């Protein structure tokens, strides 16, 4: 054993330099192939993270150039953590995350089940249709919703006004007459629902696809066996599909938590860059953008993003703690 190891360096030492170069070259080749990714990831992935750590301890107005950075220690963090707006925006983010996230999964799961039951032909068509919102530009989608939500010219208020007036529906919608037209994106009381609906609409298809894929992995024999044993359709869903889908649910919900805590585009567009309903409609990402690019305080913004990072970390950790092991299929 030992002699083996000893003999190796000697063997290399005997080799001539060209062979040596050749070997080094051969060893480095894979890294050469990897380098486009490594460089891009280094520049756009790792460097910004490190720079942001550095930045969060400085006071920096970007407009004044890199030379104007001033070290302030933990001031940015203290300022952030004692900032009532920050806590308000964290709360707003949480509420919208729940309002849009929970219904996403509650709808996507049964929907996927029905799609799979419908057979593959119909399933492909419908999955594509449900998936379309996900691949559409968020900004474009939000702008269209903004127009639909418009107070005076929006189709939603127009429809509600029609329903409130029509004889066959006025018994249920008539009460709305007093408050119409509703400021869907203007009012603090409504903005969270308006934003959450857009987020729900956009991502429900994505989750449906995850669940359809998950359901497709379940062996049909199990269903058949259950059927023979006399299990009803609900029992088959509850006792076969649901337990076997756990890893997929876990995956989908984790993505939803991370995505929703980072919510930016939808509220930004719907509130016209933060003009309306700022008390209830501003998410932590919106706030951090405002601090960075409207107040030109990059240091504070960096500190806030680290705070956001910790918040997301905590929520994901809690979720992992409760559902992690089961979710990943272990006991």
């Amino acid at each position, binding site marked *: 054993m030992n002699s083996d190891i000893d003999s190796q360096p000697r063997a290399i030492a005997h080799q001539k330099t060209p062979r040596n170069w050749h070997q080094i070259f051969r060893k480095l080749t894979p890294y050469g192939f990897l380098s486009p990714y490594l460089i891009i990831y280094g520049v756009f992935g790792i460097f910004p993270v490190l720079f942001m750590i550095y930045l969060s301890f400085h*006071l920096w*107005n*970007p*407009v*004044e*150039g890199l030379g*104007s950075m001033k070290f302030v220690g933990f001031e940015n963090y203290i*300022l952030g953590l004692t*900032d*009532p*707006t920050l806590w308000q925006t964290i709360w707003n983010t949480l509420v919208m995350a729940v309002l849009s996230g929970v219904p996403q999964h509650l709808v996507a799961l049964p929907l996927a089940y029905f799609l799979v039951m419908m057979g593959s032909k119909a399933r492909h068509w419908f999955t594509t249709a449900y998936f379309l919102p996900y691949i559409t530009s968020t900004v474009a989608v939000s702008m269209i919703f903004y*127009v639909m939500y*418009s*107070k*005076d*010219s929006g189709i939603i208020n127009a429809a509600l006004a029609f329903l409130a007036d029509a004889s066959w529906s006025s018994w249920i919608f008539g009460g709305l007459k007093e408050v119409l037209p509703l*400021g869907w994106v*203007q*009012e*603090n009381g409504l903005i969270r629902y308006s934003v959450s609906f857009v987020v729900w609409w956009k991502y429900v298809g994505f989750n449906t696809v995850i669940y359809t894929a998950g359901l497709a992995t379940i062996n049909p024999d199990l269903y058949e066996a259950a059927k023979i044993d006399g299990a009803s359709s609900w029992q088959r869903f509850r006792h076969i599909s649901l337990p076997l889908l756990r890893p997929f649910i876990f995956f989908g919900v984790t993505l939803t938590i991370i995505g929703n805590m980072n919510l930016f585009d939808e509220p930004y567009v719907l509130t*016209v*860059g933060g*003009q*309306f*309903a*700022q*008390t209830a409609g501003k998410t932590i990402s919106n706030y951090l953008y*405002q601090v960075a*690019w*409207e*107040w*030109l*305080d990059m240091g*504070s913004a960096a500190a806030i993003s680290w705070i956001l990072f910790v918040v997301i970390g905590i929520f994901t950790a809690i979720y992992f703690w409760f559902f992690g092991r089961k979710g990943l299929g272990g006991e």
Partner: protein
Amino acid sequence: MKTQLKAGVVALSLVAASTFAADIRIDGFPDYDTQIDAIKGGLPEHNITMLKNNHGDHHNKLKTNLATGTGAGDVVLIDVGFVGSFVNAGGFVDLTQFYQGMAADYADYAVEAGKGNNGAQYAVPVDLGPGVMYFRRDYMEDMGYNLDTVMSGWDSYIDYGRQLKKDGILLIGNASAVANAYYRFNVGEGEGLYFDGDGKSLVTSDRFVKAFELAKTIRAEGLDGNISEWTEDWYAGFREGKFATQMSGAWLLGHLKNWIAPDTSGLWGVSDLPAGIYGTWGGSYLAIPKQAKDPSASWDLIKYMISKDIQLTGFENIAAFPAHTGTYKNSIFDEPIEFLRGQKARLMFANIAKNITPVTPMKGDLVAEDLINTALDKVLNDNVDIKKALKDAEKQIRRRVR
């Protein structure tokens, strides 16, 4: 030998020519895009292009450009609200040398505001924003109201709104404009909008309390539409005559006439603000980023844009009120304006411009403006007590303006 000489001469002349002719891009926001053709014609030696973005995006882009040191135009248009944050930023060319002989021709207070802390001129005023109130004549004299009575004070102004409400007409699109007008136009000598001369916050002063109270009354009585300004609903409001008045800088006329509501020509008039206060609302500056390829060529463009003639053209085309005080004696000031049913409004603008109390742009203006707007939003929409909202805002301003 001969060919070499020829080539040399050609090369030399090319070098010489390039110091004269340049590609100049001006980055700006509406309504200056309407004005750019008039400017192009007067400077045929340069190739001038304009990159237009809406007001907010333009300034965001400029911030990114300054931060990264790349991508800014050769000349940039800057709204006065951003000047306080930008003049000391170090990203702009010192224009003192260029501007020296001409500065006296422009409104003093505006020239002062374009200077950095070191006294160097980094931005030069191109248009001013005399604060006025636009009103619908069909809801005023045509309905039997007397303008002078309505505008005699804020109470009578709000009373007018109560009368209009009976006919289903709103007084104003958004009550926040009234608050804005009040605190913008009652600034004391030597003060900034939100800070005194020493940089101490003024936002809990009576000026803001009273401003918020006025807006609150209007909102509480349902005299405004809670329509956010510069949105599609707001434009539609102008087009459809939903509201009777709008406070703004004189420059709103250009927007109304050119793109917001051209079909409402003849239905509008303009007046001094209630209680006869004078003040400035907006105004733009020109500056040259240090990134500019050829600052002297950029200056050619600025010099042309602030020259008497083109200032007057801009005034005619887009109601950009000239910063050049020498223009005020020109005969176009006596011309009636068709959009305002023949009113000789320009004389009024000039009168306001002469009476303006200068407002000093300050470093914390952007933060304070944001926080005051948030506070106003809370007062108007969430029924937060005025004094509490302002106190909270002040606390935040003190923390954030470092």
